[in-house]
């Protein structure tokens, strides 16, 4: 893996590569632990009610990540861990969003559910920093030559307009 260049990494996987691994070698190829939507939802409610999870989720919400994106990431984590299927996970996303909303509102943390929920007129700090960096790197100082009339022996004679 260390010898691979970035171009090698983004190469598409050859067909049938999944068959080279041992069957049920990864959590997401094993049968899920929770099958019923009811159980999956209850599992997320229990998980999101724990003190450590509340702290972690509040840290994430404070950064301004939309709750929908957070819920989607948590759900995909559950799929990768082999806890539930992606079908059950997608069905349960509203429950995760409501739990995150509850956590944020009870702790007085501002949140947005979707990316376009916020005030679009507010420019994020990151964009401002990038704009300042870009503007300061392209500064070209203009040198204005002073208009000094040369006098004396070395002075050029002003060109006379040729008469037609």
């Amino acid at each position, binding site marked *: 893996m260390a010898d691979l260049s970035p171009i090698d990494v983004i190469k598409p996987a050859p067909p049938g590569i999944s068959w080279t691994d041992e069957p049920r070698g990864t959590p997401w190829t094993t049968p899920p632990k929770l099958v019923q939507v*009811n159980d999956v939802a209850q599992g997320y409610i229990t998980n999101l009610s724990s003190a450590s999870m509340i702290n972690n989720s509040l840290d994430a919400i404070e950064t301004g990540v939309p709750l*929908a994106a957070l819920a989607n990431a948590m759900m995909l984590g559950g799929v990768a861990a082999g806890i539930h299927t992606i079908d059950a996970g997608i069905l349960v*996303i509203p429950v995760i*969003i*409501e739990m995150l909303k509850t956590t944020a509102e009870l702790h007085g943390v501002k949140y947005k559910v979707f990316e376009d929920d916020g005030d679009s007129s507010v420019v994020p700090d990151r964009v401002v920093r990038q704009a300042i960096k870009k503007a300061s790197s392209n500064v070209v100082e203009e040198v204005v030559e002073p208009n000094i009339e040369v006098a004396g022996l070395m002075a050029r004679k002003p060109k006379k307009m040729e008469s037609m």
Partner: protein
Amino acid sequence: MQHIKNYMNKIEALISAKEKGAKKTKEAKGLLAPTKPSTAKQQTELDVIVTFVQSIRQSREEMKNG
């Protein structure tokens, strides 16, 4: 995220319909009857989600109001 937004809108519509006490329409019989059976399992799963969301909201309001 658009799929989640659409799904949330659907859940909101179901919740508002449930709060209003809207009755389900009668199933059509005879020639108007659907040829395929309705997705009963999906409906029940959606109902479960709606119930969960409603109960979470209710408990949140209770915790906020003390």
